[in-house]
């Protein structure tokens, strides 16, 4: 079954053949993959999905690779959805769930988008994979390129967190460290597109890449027993995944995979140090997202000129969600809160998500019985440098290796 029909402009509807391009020539609007929905409706079922692999590829029918395309996989997705009773108790939420996407092969949700992007690129003859990245994407692109045996170029800001640099470099890609911030890296790559035959995961093959994000929501809802939650909290960098999550919910409803048709409130989370989407959300003109210069420890999501910002605000408003933002201190406090209550160590981007969850809960957004899900999208070791040294940890003591010293210093 050839289920992929082409690309279509989101703004003006112009249609294009399937190809490595991301903007409409008529209006510069973004392009989306068009599927043969009638054909898919005949095959997609809960049973077919449940019989699939324990990875995001159980949703292969709803991803932009044809049935005979070999995929580049490291077993990404189908990460744990955990009921967070202890964190929930602190926040007055009896049905709080965390989708722990830091459990992916390279420890962030980017493995989902990259697995799709590189599978598509390899099947379409690309020999070099590239990306502009705040770190996590480069990590995934480097790993999956190694897995596929493809040449790889990653473009990162020169001052990226050391742990991210190590976990990118170990895969031996060509690393281009750009003296500038992410927005400058991204602009440079957009200009480079025209003179390289490369597949830039998040630029020219973005329509395919973006589709991979849907699996985060597909899985969450399957893991909830094919029930839609009341609200989902999602971190926002470019806003790309946020937008796909609503699309994922629409598809679940469309293909009859859920009975309910009430789209959950989709709520976005940003760091105040880089909050262009939040700023616009709070203003009188939520669809005018003005760029900012990022200054935050939440480096993974520090995009000052987020391409999907207007769609995020539109979707948040349409679904009854909000866009909220937290301070640097709130980010670190939330990382510690999550670790202390649930045993999950997330990076600063996860601190933003949990920080916003906590802020909204404490402000009385929920009554307590709502089913709320937060997407924890990256692992804490990526940004371990932001946590104060262990010496600052209040429950730490140093003792001599003697019983006497232990009894003197430790109260049990």
């Amino acid at each position, binding site marked *: 079954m050839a289920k992929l029909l082409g690309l*279509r402009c989101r703004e003006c509807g112009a249609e294009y053949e399937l190809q490595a391009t991301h903007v409409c020539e008529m209006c*510069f609007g*973004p392009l*989306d993959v068009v599927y043969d929905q009638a054909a898919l409706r005949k095959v997609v079922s809960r049973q077919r999905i449940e019989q699939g692999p324990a990875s995001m590829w159980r949703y292969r029918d709803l991803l932009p690779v044809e049935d005979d395309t070999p995929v580049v996989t490291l077993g990404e997705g189908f990460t744990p959805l955990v009921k967070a009773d202890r964190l929930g108790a602190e926040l007055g939420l009896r049905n709080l769930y965390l989708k722990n996407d830091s459990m992916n092969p390279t420890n962030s949700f980017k493995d989902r988008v990259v697995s799709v992007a590189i599978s598509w690129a390899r099947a379409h003859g690309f020999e070099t994979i590239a990306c502009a990245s705040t770190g996590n994407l480069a990590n995934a692109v480097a790993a999956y390129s190694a897995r596929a045996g493809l040449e790889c170029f990653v473009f990162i800001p020169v001052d990226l967190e050391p742990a991210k640099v190590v976990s990118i470099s170990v895969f031996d890609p060509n690393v281009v460290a750009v003296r500038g911030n992410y*927005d400058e890296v991204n602009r440079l790559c957009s200009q480079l597109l025209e003179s390289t035959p490369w597949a830039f995961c998040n630029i020219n093959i973005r329509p395919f890449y*973006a589709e991979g994000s849907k699996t985060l929501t597909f899985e969450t809802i399957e893991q909830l027993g094919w029930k839609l939650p009341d609200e989902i909290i999602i971190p926002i960098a470019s806003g*790309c995944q946020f937008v796909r999550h609503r699309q994922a919910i629409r598809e679940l409803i469309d293909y009859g995979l859920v009975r309910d048709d009430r789209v959950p409130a989709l709520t976005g989370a940003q760091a105040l140090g880089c909050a262009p989407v939040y700023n616009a959300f709070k203003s009188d003109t939520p669809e005018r997202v003005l760029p900012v210069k990022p200054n935050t420890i939440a480096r993974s999501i520090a995009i000052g000129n987020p*391409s999907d910002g207007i769609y995020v605000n539109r*979707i948040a408003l349409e679904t009854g969600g909000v866009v909220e933002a937290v301070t640097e201190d709130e980010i670190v406090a939330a990382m510690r809160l999550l670790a202390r209550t649930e045993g999950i160590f997330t990076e600063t981007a996860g601190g933003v998500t949990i920080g916003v969850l906590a802020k909204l809960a404490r402000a009385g957004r929920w009554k307590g019985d709502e089913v709320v899900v937060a997407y924890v999208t990256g692992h804490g070791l990526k940004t371990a440098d932001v946590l104060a040294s262990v010496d600052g940890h209040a429950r730490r003591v140093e003792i001599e290796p003697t019983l006497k010293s232990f009894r003197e210093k430790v109260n049990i």
Partner: protein
Amino acid sequence: MPQFRIPGPLRRLSDGQMTVTVEATDLGSAIDALEQRYPGFKDRLLDQQGELRQFVNVYLNDEDVRLGAGLAAKVSEKDEISIVPAVAGGEPAN
């Protein structure tokens, strides 16, 4: 004279030219001059309110003009104005 760098999707309008030199003192008048020479550009770059379209990024010597003076930004002799399509993931309008 300031020079525009034209991205692939818009080169049809500029007879395939990658760069176009114009005479102007600010970005707004530079876009007017570009339109004079190759009609069609203005409509692609500006919305009905005369502001830069959401999906168009314009960089003056590699600085995003929205972070500065926008269309009022002064341009001079050696300046390079790059037009770069924004990269949005979008969603089908169904």
